[in-house]
């Protein structure tokens, strides 16, 4: 008779926790980082390590200073540092990721009260701050597979300036043989990580798929010479779209809760990204699009609440 245990729900426990999920996301980001280091050389590795260590240090310092619970090892600061580094060019001076990580953690996260309270994706807050503060470092990209730091524009920047993009095939874009940020170039590696997250159910399909499809459809309609003649595959494979759609737009804290809301969020991100790329001042709009939709998330949540069964 002792086998009858009376307890409140939930009765089935999967063993997941916030920090476990965070570490899984970290693991899923590793292939893209390895690819980035292979493509851009050891300086990419030092940028990644610097960003992660300074993100951890910032979290520790701020939590000690504000006398909060120390949660440095829950993985979220590592993700912030990693994502920030993945959004930087490989040959930036190393104080840039340090300042970026501190800004991400301090202004992007701890100011709001720590993990779960922030309204914007911390890594993107850091990136946008660096972009607005030191554009001369943030917009110089280097040639792939050539570790001598020879400058080369990203395909999107070349497109914006009306230059012809030479010798770049879809396969190059897919494998990451192009100028760009450390973690965004190798689509293959990003998809491996994203597939892992999707299969394990850590992220849902709604945001990334609606995001990518919306950007694709919009650029197909408007990016070409006439209507319906755009190079949509180029727009999907270039820039930070895949990295942003799978790893940054899906951040639990800053994206809507319901399926319906997530679809609205994804479509909004896609539209904004395409609009910024085609008609905006910057060649790339993923980070701004996601941040703007982050700001809209509370409203989306309010209007897409699930109806409680039996209520009106």
């Amino acid at each position, binding site marked *: 008779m002792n086998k009858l245990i009376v307890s409140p729900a939930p009765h089935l426990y999967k063993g997941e926790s916030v920090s476990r999920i965070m570490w899984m996301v970290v693991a899923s980001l590793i292939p893209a980082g390895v690819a980035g280091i292979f493509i851009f050389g050891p300086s990419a590795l030092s940028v990644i390590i610097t960003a992660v260590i300074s993100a951890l240090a910032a979290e520790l310092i701020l939590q000690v200073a504000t006398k909060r619970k120390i949660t440095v090892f829950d993985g979220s600061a590592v993700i912030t540092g990693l994502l920030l580094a993945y959004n930087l060019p490989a040959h930036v001076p190393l104080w840039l990721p340090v300042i970026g990580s501190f800004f991400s953690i301090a*202004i992007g996260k701890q*100011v709001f009260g720590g993990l779960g309270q922030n309204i914007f994706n911390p890594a993107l807050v850091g990136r946008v*701050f660096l972009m*607005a*503060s*030191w*554009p001369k470092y943030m917009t110089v990209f280097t040639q792939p597979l050539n570790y001598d730091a020879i400058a080369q524009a990203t395909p999107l920047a070349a497109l914006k300036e009306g230059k012809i993009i030479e010798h770049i095939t879809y396969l190059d874009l897919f494998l990451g043989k192009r100028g760009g940020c450390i973690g965004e170039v190798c689509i293959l590696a990003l998809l491996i990580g994203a597939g892992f997250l999707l299969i394990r159910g850590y992220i849902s399909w709604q945001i990334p798929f609606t995001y990518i499809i919306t950007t694709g459809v919009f650029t197909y309609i408007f990016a070409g010479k006439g209507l319906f003649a755009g190079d949509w595959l180029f727009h999907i494979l270039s820039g930070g779209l895949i990295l942003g759609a799978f790893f940054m737009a899906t951040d639990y804290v800053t994206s809507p809760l319901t399926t319906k809301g997530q679809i609205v969020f994804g479509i909004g991100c896609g539209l904004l990204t395409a609009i910024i790329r085609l008609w905006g001042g910057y060649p790339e709009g993923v980070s701004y699009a996601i941040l703007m939709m982050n700001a809209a998330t509370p409203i989306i949540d309010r209007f897409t609440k699930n109806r409680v069964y039996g209520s009106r």
Partner: protein
Amino acid sequence: MKKLLSEFFKGIIKENPTFVLALGLCPTLAVSVSVINGIGMGVAATFVLLGSNMIIALIKNFIPARIRIPCYIVVIATFVTIAELAMKAYSPILDRALGIYVPLIVVNCIVLGRAEAYACKNSLVNSFMDGLGMGVGFTLALILISGIREFLGAGTILGHTVVKGFEPVFVMGMPSGALLLIGLLLGFFNLAKRRN
């Protein structure tokens, strides 16, 4: 005398117009790019505050309650015009740097706020001290904000280079940087207030 001094000092910290009352943020955000602009704006606003507070304290009994705001605006606009013309005559460079924000002191919430909340209920001397304290508080807040912004955004203080090889934080020279900074400073002021 003690009362007068407390009227003066409350504007500097306890009721600082920028950090505690959060009034007049629009010119604060716009002109605090460099210390010299901040001082110019602060002095102009202090002059207007003093003048309008004194005049309104004098004529408060003659203003019909229902049209008091238009009356205040007329008084304030007179002093703003004086300040603007004086600035145009004696410091054209500063005038160009501050631009539209000098005429806009007319609708500066601090000036109107002190007229409505203080000068229309208090004596001439008290209103003078209140206006002076608020003006000095506003100027000090502007110097603090513009000092940080000029140092971070351009690497200089009052136009002099401070640290060699410093890479300016470009965003601090833009309104977004000012918003960020004022938010943080407001937070620190609230923290200090809560500790006390």
